């Protein structure tokens, strides 16, 4: 979301403004970010961590980091929302890696491979038609599209993707790499 100086984004919550508030130590600004972003943040963290308690943990830690680092956020270097979600994903992925991963996988194993596959396609259908990610993912073969989607939204590792999709590790790695090149060209 890029706004030109003077351009008004109707009814959009101004995260940049709230971050400046946090940098000044304004707790109401932090609360405003919580009210506006926390539900989505818990949703994103739940997809990675599966469990509500762990997701809340990640969101909790993200807000503490946000509070601490708000004054180092530089709008000239990147989008505020992407900065916020980068902190969240980082924290969630660290929790995910710190845990015994097989334990986390157990939770969704009963759903089986099929529902996972549908899931990745369903996720793609929910992408906005106006953004370029959907259009560019559609150009990938379904299995490759699924691999990269599962990696991002569920935080699956190369090894887990290989197991889930039933292909060798080397194949997964090259699928991902080629998909990235294709996405970069398509989204440029």
């Amino acid at each position, binding site marked *: 979301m890029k706004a030109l100086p003077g351009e008004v984004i109707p009814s959009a919550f101004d995260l940049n403004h709230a971050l400046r508030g946090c940098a*000044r*130590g*304004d*707790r109401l600004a*932090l*609360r405003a970010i*919580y009210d506006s972003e*926390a*539900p*989505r*943040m*818990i*949703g*994103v963290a*739940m*997809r990675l961590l599966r469990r*509500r308690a762990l997701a*809340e*943990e990640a*969101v*909790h830690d993200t*807000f*503490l980091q946000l*509070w601490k680092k708000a004054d180092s956020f530089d709008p000239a*270097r*990147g*989008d505020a929302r*992407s900065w916020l*979600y*980068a902190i969240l*994903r980082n924290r969630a*992925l660290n929790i*995910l890696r*710190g*845990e*015994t991963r097989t*334990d986390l996988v157990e939770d969704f194993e009963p759903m089986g491979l099929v529902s996972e596959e549908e899931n990745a396609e369903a*996720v793609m259908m*929910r*992408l*906005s038609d106006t*953004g*370029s*990610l*959907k259009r560019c993912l559609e150009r990938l073969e379904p299995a490759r599209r699924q691999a*990269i*989607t599962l*990696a*991002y*939204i569920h*935080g699956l*590792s*190369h090894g887990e993707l290989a197991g889930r999709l039933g292909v060798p590790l080397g194949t997964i790695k090259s699928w*991902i*790499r080629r998909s*990235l*090149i294709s*996405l*970069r060209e398509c*989204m440029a």
Partner: protein
Amino acid sequence: MTRDDQDRLAAEHVLGLLEGEERGQAERLLASDGAFQALVEQWRSRFSEWDNTADDAPAGDALWQRIESGLEAQPARAEVRPATPARQGASPGLLQGLWDSLSFWRTVGMAGAVAALLLAAGLGFFAMKASRQPVLVAVLMSEANQPGAVLRTFADGRAELTPLGDMQIPHNHSIQVWTFPDPAGAPVSVGVVQTARTVLLNLQNLPQPHSDQLFAISVEPLTGSPTGQPTGPVVMKGTASTAL
């Protein structure tokens, strides 16, 4: 490393796919290399559309309250920054413009209010700090003889445990903090910790802790030892010393 390699590294970092050597490499580049930071930022923004496909989950007040109490544990912002940058050699026209600018005066008004709030917060901070001089400090050492956590007790009977470094609590387990009020007696639990961060411990029901009192941490089931005594391995321990 070619630019294509860097780009792939940046994308896989954002996906969370990097392991081992490459993960460290990406973290180093991210901390030091502006061009790499820009590549990472591009991939974050490309993939951010996926974040919008997650279902919202209700965020209750309980979580907010935990966040707020987490803020208390962090040092308050001591630095009061000037609200507007000093303008030197400003032309009279600019000054006139500022004088006439409603938003400028709004900002000044807000800045005044913010400064007053910060002052109030600052006073509270120093008042709090005075009561936060610890009475006893214990550095708990791991088996490998590395400092693993710091425990501090305060005059008002509260105590805090701060894990150090990259303390990891095994999945589905907690760590439980024990102390020995009577050196010859049984350990008494003073807290069960599920996440590695600074937590308050409960020493209220114990005799005033003394220097040389032993503190230890064992790994226990998620809700703590079922028996009231340590059941898992002791992962770190240390004795308290008087804080000067």
